Structure formats: structure tokens, C-alpha cells
């Protein structure tokens, strides 16, 4: 591995200063479960590595019934999974965090890092998209917010400019009778990268769907929001016909490829299957709230 300088700032200001000073040559480090592998492979060769885990603001997980969730970029997946309020209000996102790699990985990796890595197959990203999450970014020119479904530009590339840092993820409070679910398909039962990932959230009113969002992973160069599939559900009961239509629309949303994890044909098929299954689970959960 190429040699680099290591910084471990304890405040956001200090972190931003280091990042600004080194621009493209710097890379923030959180759990390291992607970055260290990429550095070893020579895919990324930063000269400055900035460990952001000592920054208090980035480690906070705060839920407010009105304003929703503020999820610090460096909160680890296991902290999310072990948080009772997370399991209650965002079960789908919690499941997604608990699916990222092994426990060893979840103990280090963060949802923020998962997003910044920019993989089309990131497990937590479709779940964030389904929840309508926004990313709060700080940088040399100040702060900005970007919806998560616009965050990833291409595999490994995101909207973050040199010197910028993802601070936290902002997720609206769930409306009454709302819930979410995340499912992914992998050939084994653990450890694999998603062949397809589907996050779904919906709101019910007297058994009918009043709002729905569907996020899809691994079926295009970036995670996607499946607008048509979600819109097709509005005003309907979640019966077999509605599920089948949403599944079909979701499976048509992406432009999947053939690779070692699955064929394009298989990915389209599975997108439909997982969409109907995730919607069913989300609806069951929403009905109970």
C-alpha cells in the first residue's frame, strides 16, 4: 500500500480544514471496510487519510417524533441495529444495516460510509431512498443537502466534492401507519454483495396506500428510486394485482448487467419478486402501528 499521513481530528471544523487543505489527495476514513480494501488494491491512493470517528457530531443518532432522525455519518451499523427506536421506527433501514457483511463488518462500517462508497449494490442505500433520506454535507463552501437518491453519480463516484464531508443523514419521521422493509437477494445466506436490493416504505390509510417509496439497488449503475412502481400503488389496497403491477414496474426500472453475481435477466426477475415481498412486509408492519 502507498504510504500516507493519518489524521484523527476531534471536531468537524478540524476535519474540514484537513480535507480542504489536501483536496483530492485526502480521503475520509470511517469503518474502513471498503476504503482499506480499495487502498490495498491500489484503486484509491490517498496521501492523507482522515479518520472521522473521533468527531462527536458524526457519532450521534437522534430521533425526534416530529423532525425525524438525524443519523451521524459515522454511526456504526451495529449501533443502529441495537438501537430500540431504530428498530421501532425504521425497521427496514435497521435490517439493511444488519445485512452489511458480517458482524465484524457491522461493528466497524457505517451507513454513511456505505453511501459515500458509491456502490450501486450498497445495502443501506435503497433503504435510505425508500425513507426519503437527505444527506447533509459540509465543505469549504459551507453546507448543503442532497437527497440520497441523487447522491451516487456512478459506481464509486458521489456528489461529494474535494474537501466535502458527509455529516449526517436526515430522515423524516414516519407518518402514522407507515413502515418500511428492506430485502436483498444473495446466493449464500450471509456475506455476499446484493444481487438485487429493494427498500420499500409505505403509508396506509384505512387499508389503502396513501404514500409509497421504493429504492432499488444493484440493477443499474447507481441505486435508483422506482417512481412508477411506487406511484402505481397509490390509492390501492395492497392486493395481488397491485403487488404484481408494482413488481413488474420495479423490474422494468433498472438496466441491470450480467456479472459474476447474476445475469441481467435474473436481476430483473428478482427485482419483481423482492419488490412484492418487501411491500408485503412493510404493509404488515404499517398495519400494526
Amino acid at each position, binding site marked *: 500500500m502507498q504510504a500516507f499521513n493519518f489524521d484523527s481530528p476531534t471536531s468537524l471544523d478540524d476535519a474540514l480544514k484537513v480535507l480542504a487543505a489536501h483536496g483530492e489527495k485526502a480521503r475520509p476514513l470511517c469503518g474502513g471496510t471498503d476504503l482499506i480494501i480499495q487502498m490495498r488494491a491500489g484503486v484509491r491512493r490517498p496521501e492523507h487519510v482522515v479518520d472521522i470517528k473521533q468527531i462527536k457530531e458524526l457519532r450521534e443518532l437522534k430521533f425526534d417524533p416530529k423532525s425525524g432522525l438525524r443519523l451521524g455519518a459515522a454511526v456504526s451499523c451495529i449501533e443502529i441495529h441495537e438501537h430500540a427506536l431504530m428498530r421501532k421506527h425504521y425497521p427496514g433501514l435497521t435490517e439493511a444495516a444488519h445485512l452489511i457483511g458480517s458482524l465484524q463488518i457491522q461493528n466497524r462500517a457505517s451507513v454513511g460510509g456505505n453511501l459515500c462508497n458509491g456502490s450501486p449494490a450498497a445495502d443501506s442505500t435503497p433503504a435510505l431512498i425508500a425513507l426519503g433520506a437527505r444527506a447533509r454535507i459540509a465543505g469549504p463552501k459551507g453546507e448543503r443537502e442532497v437527497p440520497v437518491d441523487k447522491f451516487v453519480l456512478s459506481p464509486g463516484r458521489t456528489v461529494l466534492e474535494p474537501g466535502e464531508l458527509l455529516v449526517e443523514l436526515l430522515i423524516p419521521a414516519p407518518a402514522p401507519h407507515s413502515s418500511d422493509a428492506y430485502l436483498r437477494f444473495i446466493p449464500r445466506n450471509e456475506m455476499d454483495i446484493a444481487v438485487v436490493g429493494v427498500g420499500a416504505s409505505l403509508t396506509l390509510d384505512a387499508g389503502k396506500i396513501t404514500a409509497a417509496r421504493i429504492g432499488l439497488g444493484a440493477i443499474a449503475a447507481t441505486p435508483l428510486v422506482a417512481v412508477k412502481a411506487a406511484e402505481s400503488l397509490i390509492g390501492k389496497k395492497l392486493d395481488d394485482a397491485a403487488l404484481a403491477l408494482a413488481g413488474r414496474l420495479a423490474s422494468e426500472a433498472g438496466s441491470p448487467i450480467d456479472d459474476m453475481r447474476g445475469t441481467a435477466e435474473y436481476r430483473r426477475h*428478482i427485482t419483481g419478486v423482492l419488490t412484492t415481498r418487501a411491500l408485503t412486509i412493510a404493509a404488515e408492519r404499517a398495519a400494526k402501528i
Partner: protein
Amino acid sequence: MAAATNNGHFKVIGTRPIRHDGIDKVMGRAKYGADYAFPGMLHGKLLRSPHAHARIKSINLTKALALPGVKAIITGKDLPKAENKLEQSGEMTVNPYYLSMNILAHDKVLYDGHAIAAVAATNPHIAEEAVRLIEVEYEVLPPVMTVDAAMKPGAPILLHDLRNKEEGNKETNVAQHHQFKRGDIEAGFKSADFIIEREFNTAMVHQGYIEPHNAVGIYNTDGQATIYCSTQGAFDVRSLSAQVLGIAVGKIKVVPAEIGGGFGGKTTIYLEPLSVLLSKMTGAPVKLVMTRGEVLRATGPTSGSKIKVKMGATKDGTIVAAQVWMAYEAGAYPGSPVGAGAMCIIAPYTIENLQIDGYDVVVNRPKTAAYRAPGATNAAFASETIIDELADKCGMDPLDFRLKNGVKEGSAQVVGPPFKRIGFVETCEAIKNSEHYKSKLTGKNRGRGVATGFWFNAGMQSSATVNIHTDGTASVVTGSTDIGGSRAAMAMITAEVLGLPVTDVRPLVADTDSIGHTDVTGGSRVTFATGMAVYEAAQDAIKQLTERAAKVWEIKPDQIEFRDGAFHSKAGDKPPMAIKELAKRLARTGGPITGRASVNARGVGPGFAATLVDVEVDPDTAKVKLLRCTIAQDAGRAIHPSYVEGQMQGGTAQGLGWALNEEYFYDDKGTLRNTGLLDYRMPTCLDLPMIETIIVEVPNPGHPLGVRGVGEVSIVPPPAAVANAIFHAVGIRMMETPMSPPKLMKEMLKKRAAENAQSAAAD
């Protein structure tokens, strides 16, 4: 052959003591190859080809050598030219010419990951950075990735000096053709009521040991070299390294470290001679450790294959004819296990009329190495699927069908000679009588499959010494790397013969200077052949001890009998003398006692296994869930039943991984895409059920303790068993491994579409 100890009544054999080396391993103290470090040690890294097939036009080392901390760089030019000739090395046949080119490419690279240069530097990071600075100019050639592509007329040629007997002086990618023939297959098929003919494809798979290859080489100015490495065969590392380096065998000492798995993959060499050569150039110890990517790209996986089988049976369930065509990927250089595959493919059955043709084909993939019953698993996937289908056609239970056609003592093997006492029938019956087989499998999309497997097992050379200590305890020294608990088995055999508690015997694995020649830990041969040497060495110690007891008692040795750990005068006129007592008197009766034996073992007893699997197929995703799995295997004699079960379970797990998800995935340029354990999908803890074991013991008449060897055959049946279970769950015959969700889903959707079309037509 000597009679079994204590008339077949054992005190130690068959018990489950804690392995002697266990405590070091659970405390993190055991030293594996990568754990060795020496003062002033340098670290090496290799440059590997990004192309599957290319000519090397030039290599420029200037920038790399200029990097501070870089001490030496070697390329193929630094290795002496080896002779193009097949040689015996342990159980393997090796061509030093190809071996040398595989270790460092000479003028052509033949697969993605083929080594081109090796760097030694003051730390591994510097070595790695130096590798990035080596400049290589390639002339890229078209890659030949499959046996079909390689056998096509006009296919690009990998090795321009490769010839086979049948094609005369023509350039070819077919290294060898094997053929086995018996009876009259045309007449046989004519007499059949049912004939099934199918084509199978299996993907290249890797042994997947968790420990990457490693070597530390130390070359002294007096010309003596020492290699520390994790290997299945220290003596093979010595002889192969000597050939590649062009130095005498006697100038190299190999110290076998603990080994983190091998399964056949650590029976050859990659890094060892490079570590010595780099040490020679730098004057310092040099350590080389592969990354996982290097292990997958550039060590020795087992062959992918294409197999066509045609088999016929009469209504009463008799198999009357079989015809097999099989081609195995050898990798970049000749030497796939197709010969073994050909001899295994219908080995469990007596078939009067048969013809088997096997082809060894070079392709732009890494040179294959042995993998647990090499060649047999691919073969059984094809034949055992067809057998299942024939049993179905004949309306017979699949095990009854196998038993009806199964080989017994005296049955002719595929290659002609008759079997001695074997346990195929007993193994099938063990499954048939199991609670699992008798249980009912209910539920939608669930199915049960059974399959069997055959493996020869191996004999070969082993040495052992048994030292009697002054307190009457003992040590047993062998040259067989302990890859899965064999130290315990060696200590148990020694303890059994000497009548000692197993805790009074210390087993150890010695380096190549400290014990007589011993072939690889492979071929399921350690407990069989090294066990035979240990048994004889312990008997030799007893013989010498008896002479000492005779001295003490002033009687003749033949007036003394040894039993239960003590010497007894046959006349019964003296109180028995325990070994412990006698041991105190060794100094005054002639000095220390060392029992010795070396064998080139005869009497190899083949092994059979039968595996039963229940699966459930997700109808929407085609993911196969393993619900239950039982394996029965003939061990001959289980010395340490826990480690016998361990071999059965481990082989089964590898076979199940092979069945469902493992495969080498190359893109159209011949670049390996899944170079890590994320995408080379071996089973995790969550993917497997408990693996139930039934140890069958049909003693091998060729071994003093009845041992057959248990290391390999368990891997053979699972892919076919899973395929058969999938058929019984969803009605689809899978003819390709891995039977991964995309492949199975495709077939399920095809079937569904056909059924829908049919019912639409019926409407």
C-alpha cells in the same frame, strides 16, 4: 501382514482423545508458515500478468530497482532451463520444464495472474509499490478459456512444443487421451430398455484453504538452503525446488510449518524456489506470502469439465452399457485429473460393456493441482445424475438400483483388475437404514437426493521412528504434515502397540533432514501409509524391548510375551515388567531404543461414500436451501472417530459448495472476476445444516489395522446428490455446476412457460 493388535480388541484406537497439538492451536501459539520471522528478513511480492494469453516483449526493472528499500528483482530469465520431461515426484507426475514456467513465466504468460517477476524489499509495502513500477510490454494473444474452444480446429495454441501421441507432430492443445474399453457397447445399448444420454458441464473450483501460500527462504553462502513453508509435502517441496533451481536435493532442507488447509492445493510449489533465489541474491532471509487474489488467480484449482454420458439399463434394473466422453481443463500446462476421473466415473458399478474416453486439454487458466479425490467429483456429478434417472425409469428406489449394480469383492474395476474387499454395499446400506432415509420429507418444493462416490486412496512412501524415553513414555516422529489431526492418529497407533496411554506418546512432524523420505499428505494416505510405518516402527521398538527384557531376566526373547504394556515370561515365573520399568534399565542393557520403519505401502483399500441430501427450492428465486444431510463412508478402521467424522463433514461441505455456488468466473478477455472470498462463494456457517455422519468399517485386508484412508471420497457425491434432490423438488435435471440461483431460475421459468403453453393448448 501382522495380526491386528490385541487380537482386534483395541484400547486406544476408536477412542476420541484430545489432539496433542490442539492446545497450541487454540492458544494461537502454533507456527504456520507466515508466522516465521528472522532477523534482517526481507519481504517479497510478485508481479502478475493482467492478460490471459500474451507474449512478453520486454520487462523493464529500472524504476522498480530505484525505489529505496528494494533489494533484488528476479524474472523467468533468472531460473535455469529445466528439462522437458515427465518425472515422478511423490504421488505426482511433474514436468520440471512446465513447473518452472508456471513459477515465473519465460516468454509467454498463459493466464490472468501468471507470475512474471519477484521483488524483495525491506517491507512488504515497499515490495508492493516496486511491483507497480515494473514495466512490461505485452503482445496480447486471444485467450482460450474452455475445452470446446481449445479443441476446435484452428484454435490458438498455448504451448507450441506440446504434442500428443495421436496427432503426431501437430501443434495441439490436447495433451493426452485416455481410453478404457470393455465388452461391446453397441450390443450393450441394443439390449437396453432405457437409454439416457446427457451432457454435463462443471465449473473450475478452488480448494479454498484459508491460509494463503507462504515461504521463507534462507540461502547461506556455503550453498545450503532452508525453506520454511506450509506444505502438504516437505519432501516434494525439496525435490521440486531443487529441480527448478538446478541445485542438489541434499543442499535443501525443508521445515514444514503448520499448514492452514491444502486439500491437494499445497502438493506443488510456487513461492518456495523464489524465496531461496531472492535470499541468494540478497544474503538475507526472504519471506513471500500470497494474497487471496493471488491464491485464486494463480495457484492450482481443479478442472472445469465437459462430460457426455450415455448409459443404458434393462427393465429389471441392470446397467448394460455406458459410454463416456470427458474433457478436463488442465489449465495452462498439461496435467488435469481426467485419467482419474475416467477411472472413477462408473467405478461403483459392474457394467459389462463400456467405453470411456478422457482428454486432458490446456486452456488459459491457472495450472490445475490436486483437489480432494481429483477428477472424481466432476465425474460423479454426471454419472450419478444419470444413475438416478435410470433408477427412476426402472421404477426402483435409487439405493436399490445402486445395490443391484454395485461392485463387491471380485467385481472388475473400470480398468480391469478385480476389487479386493470393499465396502460399497455396506455404505449404501448404511444410508438405506439411516433414520434420515427412513424419515418422510414433506412440504412443497422439497426434494431428497442420494449419490455415491468412489476414490482409489493412495499408498506410497512413509517413514516413522518411535523413541522410547527413559521414563517409559514415547515419541513418534513422522514426515507427514498434520493437516487435520493426524498427529493424534499416529500417537494413538503408537500407544495401542506399546500399551501406553495416548497422553504418554508425543507425536511430532519432522523436517526433511530429521526423518526418512515421506511422500505428501494427500491421497488419503497418512493414516494408511504413515500409520503403517508407525505401526511397524512401534512393533520394531517392542522387538528391541523384548530383547532387553530377555537380558534382564537372563532368558531367551522367545520366552517372553508382550501384552497390555508389559513383558511377561511365558513360563509365568516372573512378575510382569512394564515398559516404564524396563525403560529405566535401557542404559545398562545396551542404550536407547528407537523403533524404525519405512514403507512403500502396498495394500491400498479404496473408499466409497454415499450422501443423502434434502433441499428446499425457493420457487420465486431458485435459491436452494439445504435442509438435512447425511453421509456414510467406509473408513476401513476409524482410528480417531472424531477426525474421521471431520474429514467426512469437511469433504461434504466442499462438495455442497461446489454444487451450489462456487465457480471461477472469467470475463471474455480471460480475466478472473471473482478474485476474493466475497465473490468466490464458499459455504458459510449459515449455509449448511449439521452434517450427520455414519462411519462404516469394512476393514482393509491390506493394512495391519484395517485402515483405508478417509480424506477424500466425501467430496465426491454431494453435487450429484444435490442435483438429484433438486430434481425431486422441482422436476428439473440440472446438468451444470454450480447450480446457482440464476441458472436454476432460468430452467424453472422455462419449465413453467412450457407447462403454461401446454395447459393453454389443452384449454
